[in-house]
């Protein structure tokens, strides 16, 4: 066990954990973040996605020690129901969810990609989401929401 400091959604937290613990368990258990979820534990589905230093990462296959000190954003920290992030708002506008379990993967992967590639085309956005799964198959609404948000960015 060792003390590791994480910066999550703008706040510093020090946790005393096995440094080999996957980041996901620290976020969801110790820090009670509701966004990142255990879907597969294998980095195959995206449900555990968080943004670390601007990159979307799979927190289930990232050890906590490798992100010590990094700026981490979870879906919880992106916006609030009262003041959602514009990308979250686009999902609300499109009613782009069913069970919602996949949303960290879909929203945060798209957010990180568009932050880096604000001029991305629809095809490029889709390719960026190639490793993200939604078992309810809300795909078409989600992509519409992401493209609407991307369009706002291009027009801004």
């Amino acid at each position, binding site marked *: 066990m060792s003390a590791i400091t994480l910066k999550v959604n703008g706040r510093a937290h020090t946790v005393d954990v096995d440094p080999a613990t996957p980041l996901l368990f620290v976020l969801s258990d110790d820090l009670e973040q509701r*966004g990142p979820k255990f879907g597969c534990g294998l980095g195959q589905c995206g449900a555990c996605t968080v943004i670390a230093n601007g990159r979307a990462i799979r927190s289930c296959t990232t050890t906590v020690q490798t992100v010590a000190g990094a700026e981490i954003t979870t879906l919880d920290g992106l916006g609030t129901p009262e003041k959602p992030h514009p990308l979250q708002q686009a999902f609300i506008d499109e009613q782009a969810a069913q069970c919602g379990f996949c949303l960290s993967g879909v929203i945060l992967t798209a957010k990180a990609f568009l932050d880096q590639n604000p001029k991305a085309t629809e095809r490029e956005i889709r390719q960026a989401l190639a490793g993200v799964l939604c078992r309810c198959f809300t795909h078409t609404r989600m992509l519409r929401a992401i493209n609407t948000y991307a369009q706002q960015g291009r027009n801004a």
Partner: protein
Amino acid sequence: MRMTADAAAGLARAGFSRRAFLRGSGALVVGFTLGDVAGPLGSTSLAGAQTPPDRRTQLDSWIAIAADGTVTAYTGKCELGQGLYTAQMQLVAEELSVPLARVRLVQCDTGVTPDEGTTSGAQSHPANFRNENLALAGATAREALVRLASARLGVPADQLVASDGRVAMRTDRSRSVGYGELVGGKRFDLPLDPEAKRKPHGEWTVLGTPVARVDIPSLVTARVQYVHNMRVPGMVHGAVVRPPTIGAALAGVDESSVSGMPGFIKVVTRKNFVGVVAQKPWQALQIAAKLKTTWTPGPALPDQRRYYDYLRTRPTQDTIWVDSGDVDAKLAGAATVLKSTYYHPYQMHASLGSSCAVADVQGRTTTVWAATQNVYGLRGNLARVLDVTPGDVHVVFTRGSGCYGINGVDAVSFDAALLSQAVGKPVRVQLTRRDEMAWENYGVPFVIDQRVGLDAQGTIIAWDYESWTATRGGRIGNANTGNIVTGVLLGYQPPAFAPSAAKPTDQPFNDSNHAPAYVTGCVGGMCDGKGTIAGERAIARRTESEFFTGPLRAPNQLQNTFAHESFMDEIAAHAKADPVAYRLRHLREQRLIDVVAAAAKAARWEPRPAPRAGNRRTGIASGRGFASVAMEAGIYTNGWIAMAVDVEVNQDTGVVIVKRLFMAHDSGPISNPNGLRNQLEGAALQGMSRALSEEVTWDAQKITSVDWRSYPIPSLGTEMPVIETVLIDRPGENATGAGETASAPIGAAIGNAIFDATGVRLRQIPFTPARVKEALAARRT
């Protein structure tokens, strides 16, 4: 550990029986936080005036009105991601003439909500939106409020109108009284009135409109507490060690292999059940992975490559769904006889989130939080597993990952309860991906032989259907504990399989769509089929499966529809007829005819036979396909759908892309058109995934499709079709289901489109690139 507000509320309810609390007289207000959704719905003050919830005929079991006029409705149908929570709020708001914002909904909580069985089979819309249950409770309450107001105001009831949470005189709205003043906090003490009038469809202002789902802002900002996020005081974490192979028996456990590991609390074994408990979730997973166990292997599994042939050799339980008695004679006299065999594999629910439950067993008193589809059924089974009475157990539905049928939720609820009982602390268990996928109750495989006889004009005069499937276990009901993996590990068994000869069904005609829509369906003098073919026979043979099986979205209906609608396309092609026109030629039921016509119109379908003339044999070939189904669910038809798809087949790689999808759907009166579209889109695309990608696999001993590499599905990166959906609203009809319809026909529609594009008929799901390439290679040159 900090306790979440939701957990606190649940615990409070567990130790503080709401029923006992409310047995007293007078107005009582129980405050607790809505378990399902935090955020905008926030803390809710509920007026409690309920009678015991098993009394489904009592109005107070369904509706309570607080002194401030807030309406609380209690429902036994839960939000599984299908949007039902919002739709039920709309229903209550509409029937009670109260603004949506003043409606609270409490769902699926033993001892609190009515026992409405399982939230499954696209049955919630029919159950709660017809003239019974929740809808009837709303109507009964509104009429009761008008009567109470009549007495209060001294105005005849027929001169009063309920609106905006008040009852007012039609001619003088200033003479009014609020619901809270009329019954606030008190019981109605009335039975549901079967004569109570539902609000006429023409007066709807909330129901039937695209109200945005109340939970989506909380979902997209991660404010919703899934069961995966539950925290209760003193909670520790469990993990299970499933057998390494199917049918293996536990021979030994070496606790010393893990007892020194960080966070170790306990190894728990009971018969073949093995689990571990640790302080932290990651510790529990590591301990479970390191625990040394030895097992005696079970019998070898049948060779998957020859499994469909193997099914035909197995002992069967047979059901005759329809038999006109003249099929063999009609086939013998037919101008042409066509036959084909269709194959459908085992498939899985494969929830994105592996199943999770939290259990707190304190002596006999047990609370379990789980995303189960049936809280009361789970309660009964937990009582058996824990050796307590159902009254000792409180099951609280808590939101989970979409399930599409029976996933690992009930099994993991057993797991958590066993581990909690063993350590005397609350235990949270979430299955690994492998344990979810290797041991869930799969959707069943089918081999379907069909023959038709055509007359000289190419009209079908006889349709013969014979199928083999395989089942084991299923839903746990109230006491079928051996129907899922943990139950069997504990020594319970599924109902014994008893082979039996073919006998006519005692069930309503065509439950699960064994017979195609095109037959007359004449059984016992009643002709409930939707078509014109009088020579009809449908025999379904059930064998015993090696794997657990259970309902997976459109169970049996999907497999049967794949076979019927693909074969219909083959027949139309043989008759050189347009596939839509040929379908219509054999249909007589108007609602099915209407969706077929509407989908064809939306797709701008030009009549011609398949395959398309002039397509090249290399590169990309385009084609179109059509399929339709009326979902037969026992005593009634549970939704009508037709669809057309445009596909592109890459004849060099075998990759099939669905480019466009046109659907027409009828599920009676529409409760929320946007929610309905969302369900149809998701069901169709999930059905597309099943048709193109999904197949459970195994080797000689164990399941080998255990993650998203070995059980792939299309990701967000996969090109998806442009979807156009036509909704047919039927205000005068009964509500039917909509959650499964679109999954059922899409496999046939895609297969038919591949035929149209390439001239090759695919008769085995899934249409993987390898299978498509193989079929194309076998094509006559």
